[in-house]
């Protein structure tokens, strides 16, 4: 017995949609990491942070030393709502536990010149889930494209 015709027509889109929904919403269970202490020394100059991307794992104890090298700069981490500002020569320190996973922006807190609004950095807590999901989604798409065998021939 073969599948009814409407099912065989819809099978591929339905399968594709299911896979896409799965790729985007399925909980990604990654092996939990042992929390460690992480130290970053960020040098802030007009109009960038160096390093500009910080990667930590959830639960890590993070210490950030902010060093301003030209004018007064600051740091404000979104969601964590932490802030500090540093004069050149006077290091400011932030210590916190990375208890929220995800990607957060940090931005300069103190008007430091014309391009101050664009002085941004990233705090990545845990793996980049968005990227992993994008990979899964692409794989699902690839699978459907490469699967040439018509579904109507499948017999139950």
């Amino acid at each position, binding site marked *: 017995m073969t599948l009814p015709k409407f099912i065989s027509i819809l099978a591929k889109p339905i399968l594709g949609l299911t896979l896409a929904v799965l790729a985007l919403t399925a909980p990604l269970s990654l092996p939990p990491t042992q929390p460690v202490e992480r130290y970053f020394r960020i*040098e802030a100059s007009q109009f960038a942070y160096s390093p500009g991307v910080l990667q930590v794992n959830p639960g890590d104890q993070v210490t950030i030393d902010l*060093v*301003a*090298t*030209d*004018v*007064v700069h600051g740091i404000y981490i979104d969601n964590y709502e932490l802030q500090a500002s540093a*004069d*050149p*020569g*006077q*290091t400011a320190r932030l210590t916190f536990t990375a208890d929220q996973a995800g990607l957060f922006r940090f931005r300069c807190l*103190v*008007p*430091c*010149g*014309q391009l101050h609004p664009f002085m941004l950095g990233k705090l990545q807590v845990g793996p980049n889930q968005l990227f992993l999901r994008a990979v899964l989604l692409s794989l699902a798409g690839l699978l459907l494209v490469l699967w040439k065998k018509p579904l109507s021939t499948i017999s139950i």
Partner: protein
Amino acid sequence: MEKLAKILVVVLILLVAAVPLLGQQIIAQPETIELRARMPENGGWSQEFIYGLVNVPIKLRMTSDDVVHSFALAQSSLPSVEIFPGKFSETELVFDQPGEYTFYCTRWCGANHWRMRGTIVIEGPASSDQPTSVPPLFLQLGLDLDAPHFARVIPSNRPESARASERTNALPDGLTDGENIWSKSPEALWKDLKADEDLDDQSVWDMVAWGLNQQGSSGWMGQGRELYTQNCLACHSESGRGDGVMVRDLPPMNHDKMGSEATRPPDFSDPAVLLGASPALLEGKIIRGGMGTGMPYWGNIFTSEQIRSLVLYLYSFQMELEERP
């Protein structure tokens, strides 16, 4: 009846003309000066000179055109006023003596931050006799601030003031005379004392530290640390090594090529540098600046008491000194 109407019209017209004049009289307030702060590269203070009269308040309305600045009056205890871009900060100043007063920026606003200085000129009668100013010790002694001054005798351990004060009760004569201490380098004091007293080398060094320590007024260490942190640290760095964020890309200091380019400051963690410098010499360097390194001059910013605290604080890079109760 017609005449009455004419008079009424004239009175009304006069009244209308009088309103703005009277209004101006009523709302007339002390003149407010708008002072805009900009990075020195962009022009610094919008007014380099501010003129005023004795006992007439000067109202300043300040804002910044670029980064965070701060307005402070030199040699005064008035707290500094932060100036943020897009906001106005106001302050009122009253001077009871004629003269020239320096105002300056206290927040690092660029590599040339220290150039952000201006002058308030106050005219009028002096209310009392001004104390005659004594020339600083380095001028009285005729010291050459630019000459190399490396100590040859170096203690094997850090001199400790507390160790000396525990051992004996009285300072030797050479270490109670303020002018003697201020005009001689720790190394020279050590040599004097070593010749007079029958003590081992380290004990003599401890004595020298104690003598210097006694020169501080109460609260000198906190004051010195604060001044150093706010004004010196960006170049001289926290460790005193002279590799602060503002100068770390510059070549190290070289006495032979002095003045040819801006250089890093000397390394205070090297005992030869500080132990060979007399307090008067360090005082002079702070007052005058320069030394071929590009160091700013602080003579018209700090009070002489502040400079003394700062000088003693510098020695704490080489000695264990302690705050006096």
